[in-house]
């Protein structure tokens, strides 16, 4: 799903990495290891390339300045949790901006989107909007499991819950999303 046919080495600026300070090499290694999955998850959450770059940068900056440059115990967990939280903050900000600045334009667009029920873009935007409204624990599971494509085991480990609880949370999240998306349409 992550397009493994692409050679990631081609997407890596080795000269820039060598310039990184010795004490921060582990961050570059983490970037090489998890960068693609992170970018994919951020892209799916945000749907905007500039926002993806901003969130990605924020995640690694936070990692670099975590408790005086110390490595977290489980880097992948830290990266995915931070990425999820950062992305949601940005998404909420964008939604609020869109709501306030272009209320008129949105009002014009809504009926068009309603007409084409299976308009993929509209559906994706609607889902993003509703995911941002989910309670923290449900949102984290949806983001990590469905948008980050991590296994339930990894999701459970990242969140500090059991795999069964992660499954239950996902189920609840999907039910809630279904209700919200359906309600919006009925209105």
């Amino acid at each position, binding site marked *: *799903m992550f397009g493994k046919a692409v050679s*990631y080495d081609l997407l890596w600026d080795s000269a820039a990495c060598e310039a990184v300070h010795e004490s921060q090499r582990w961050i570059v290694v983490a970037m090489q290891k998890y*960068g693609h999955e992170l970018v994919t998850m951020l*892209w*799916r959450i945000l*749907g905007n390339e500039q926002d993806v770059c901003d969130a990605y940068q924020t995640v690694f900056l936070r990692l670099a300045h975590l408790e005086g440059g110390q490595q977290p115990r489980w880097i992948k967990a830290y990266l995915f949790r931070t990425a999820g939280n950062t992305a949601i903050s940005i998404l909420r900000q964008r939604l609020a901006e869109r709501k306030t600045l272009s209320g008129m334009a949105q009002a014009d667009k809504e009926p068009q989107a309603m007409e084409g029920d299976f308009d993929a873009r509209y*559906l994706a935007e609607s*889902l993003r909007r509703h995911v941002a409204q989910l309670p923290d624990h449900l949102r984290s599971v949806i983001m990590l499991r469905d948008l980050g494509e991590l296994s339930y085991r990894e999701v459970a480990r990242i969140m500090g819950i059991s795999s069964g609880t992660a499954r239950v949370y996902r189920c609840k999240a999907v039910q809630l999303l279904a209700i919200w998306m359906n309600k919006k349409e009925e209105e």
Partner: protein
Amino acid sequence: MRLLTHREKIDSCESRSAPGRCGRIRRRLLDSASHRLGPEAPWVQRHVASCPRCQKRLAALTKVDLALSAIKSQPHQLGLLMQANSAAVKMLNHPLRREAQERRLDEAKPEPCLMERCLGHRYAVANVAACVAILFLTKAGIFSSFDKARTEGQEVMKNYYTSQVGEDLAGEVFES
């Protein structure tokens, strides 16, 4: 408690013997269960066909699945990873926290401008200015006006006495 024990047994079994076998069996069980109990099961389909409430619920759930698929199928630019990586690496190479100005900014204290500093004494300055103005007005205007009024008053009184009692007597009264 019983479930937990069973779970522990499964975990220990997985770690002891063939690691992929338990996973395979579990997946098969899940597939089988979803086939028999999931939304594609014939008895579920039969019920859904005749129940409008379930139809609605199923449609809503399908819509979420569809939306998730739509999000997953939207591709990003191939260069996005490189773009994000280079921006992050650049930021790591050039962290603002290590800039020379950072220490100065850290230690910097706010220095109010002359105007803002004077603003604190504005009431005292206004009071002094008011006193000076009063003094000046008193000195220049009011005192001289008093003198002028007194002189003019004396002149009027002298004229009155002159007309009433004569110039000699008035002269005596006002010159003394």
